[in-house]
């Protein structure tokens, strides 16, 4: 499958990273998926710029301010949820906000939350996995039991139940919960469950590496545990770490959307894909477009990210096909 192009100078040895990159470059599906993923990130990053050029924002209730855009029941006039040259993806039923900018800013919410969660989960999980796998003994056993317990919680249900409890701690019942706190709560509870599978995966890898000759050699050579972890173990762990991180981004994007759909995640007026689907599910009978747009956006993003993750794995460990 690998069409290795002749290097300019065949005598120059290539690093494993360069080889992996070359394999990824040759994988056309992977590259296409990568372009789509990058496009999502770019759109999210440039959301303020794009909406400035487009001349609208996700908060103004255009449909209510201007008569004629919504009909007497609050649904957008015109076909396909009011898609027109002026409102590219139509209007939100009821409030009459612009769908295109909501979707754009929604990318930011979803990607920010999932990126932060993946970062925390990966760092924490790797650290715990390394410690448990390398130290062994009672530390390994103890950490293993904690992982068992963390994996025994029904995470979705627990998060739905727990978010209001956390918020009741800081915000009294008659006040609105500020957005930053909703986001922080989500990140914390998602990370609180997410580190355990990563730790288990990494521990297994470390245990199988620990007894390999090169690690033994380093130990006999008098290398400190920190040096062994940094110079001998970590370089061999980048593949599982990268693969698990890249495959968990779409998982957290959809989990976050699911929580918002269930009303436990992001709420009004913050733009968010899950919140759009939550509203879309209420009005789907009269205006399916408002449901389709965020749903298809999530689908494209998840398919692209999964394809990219598969390609990254194949590029990093070609034998694992």
């Amino acid at each position: 499958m690998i069409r290795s192009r002749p290097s300019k100078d065949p005598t120059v040895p290539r690093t494993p990273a360069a080889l992996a990159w070359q394999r990824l470059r040759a994988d056309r599906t992977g590259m296409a998926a990568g372009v789509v993923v990058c496009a999502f990130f770019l759109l999210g990053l440039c959301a303020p710029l794009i909406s400035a050029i487009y001349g609208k924002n996700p908060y103004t209730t255009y449909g209510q301010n201007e008569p004629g855009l919504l009909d007497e029941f609050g649904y957008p006039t015109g076909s396909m949820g009011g898609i027109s040259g002026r409102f590219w993806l139509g209007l939100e039923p009821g409030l009459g906000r612009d769908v295109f900018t909501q979707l754009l800013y929604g990318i930011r919410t979803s990607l920010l939350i999932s990126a932060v969660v993946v970062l925390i989960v990966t760092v924490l999980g790797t650290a715990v996995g390394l410690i448990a796998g390398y130290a062994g003994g009672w530390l390994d056993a103890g950490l293993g039991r904690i992982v068992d317990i963390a994996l025994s919680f029904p995470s979705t249900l627990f998060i739905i139940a727990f978010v209001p409890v956390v918020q009741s701690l800081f915000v009294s019942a008659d006040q609105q919960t500020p957005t930053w706190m909703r986001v922080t709560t989500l990140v914390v509870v998602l990370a609180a469950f997410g580190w355990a599978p990563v730790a288990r995966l990494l521990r297994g890898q470390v245990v199988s590496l620990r007894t390999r000759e090169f690690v033994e050699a380093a130990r006999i050579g008098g290398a400190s545990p920190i040096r062994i972890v940094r110079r001998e173990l970590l370089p061999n762990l980048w593949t599982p770490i990268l693969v698990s991180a890249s495959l968990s981004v779409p998982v957290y994007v959809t989990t976050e959307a699911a929580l918002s759909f269930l009303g436990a995640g992001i709420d009004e007026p913050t733009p968010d894909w899950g919140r759009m689907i939550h509203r879309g599910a209420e009005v789907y009978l009269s205006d399916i477009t408002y449901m389709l747009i965020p749903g298809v956006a999530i689908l494209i993003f998840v398919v692209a990210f999964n394809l990219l993750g598969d390609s990254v794995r194949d590029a990093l460990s070609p034998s694992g096909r």
Partner: protein
Amino acid sequence: MFGYILRRGLGAVLILLVVSAVTFLLFYALPADPARLSCGKTCTPQSLAQIRHSMGLDRPLAVQYWQFLHGVFAGRHFDAVWCAAPCLGYSFVNQQSVSSTLADRFPATLSLAVGASVLILTVGVGFGILAALRRGRALDKQLTAVALVGASMQVYFLGIVARYLLVDQFDLLPQPGYTGITSDPGKWFGGMLLPWITLAVVSAATYVRFTRSAMIEAESQEYVRTARAQGLPPRVVHLRYAWRGALTLVLTQFGLDLGVFLGSAVITETTFNIHGIAQLAVTSVTNLDLPMITGTVLVAATFIVVCNTAVDFCYALIDPRVRL
């Protein structure tokens, strides 16, 4: 074997104890006022005081947890009301014990799980084996592509779009919803059909990918090569030898998935408005019904631990090395 089961069973009980303690602590010690959270949206000062007293919230936390555990095994009193074992608490919002509400809701979730599992296993495993046997050919590639898109689908999106098209627009399926199987089997089946199909499309895709790789893995094992070398017909080699090897992996995955089913059913039940246990949790959160919330979380956690332990037992039965 007996020693292994005993060890593993004790471990499971220990994990359950810790999970229940952590859940109890988080939900009863953390909120500023658990009584307020149990009182519901329409709360009067009198009922608040009554709840505070009958839940024993004025006593130390350790005593409260002990009372809770005691209730689970031997039942307990909430003022005049007797809550029989296994008592997971008393919902002041519904004026009903948590366990009896859970028992009312259980058939709906069970129907969802059983029907969806049958579909997922037959469709997912069937297509997975097919893809593995046609490895590298057009059918394999098509199945893998469809499985990728299916696995990327979300129940909350696919379910509503399918409902819009199949039920509301073209009237091909009846309205989704749960009816008791004993009261009207036809309506029960019709109402559950769309939720089953939606869950199957989303989850069967994972099983197609999983079964495919497990089969390919098994096909490369030496015992399969030996069977082939002995001149056994291909059908026997695939289905009697390779499939046996893949079966354990698929069953393990299924056991683990079944464990988390109750927790993840929350999305399906909300999408199709099925009044099951998971949906009960969501309504309890909106109604501020703390005993009901902790009850559902604990039942879901128990389900996970029981399923994981069952998987371990099955594994030990099949593979004696595990018992060591």
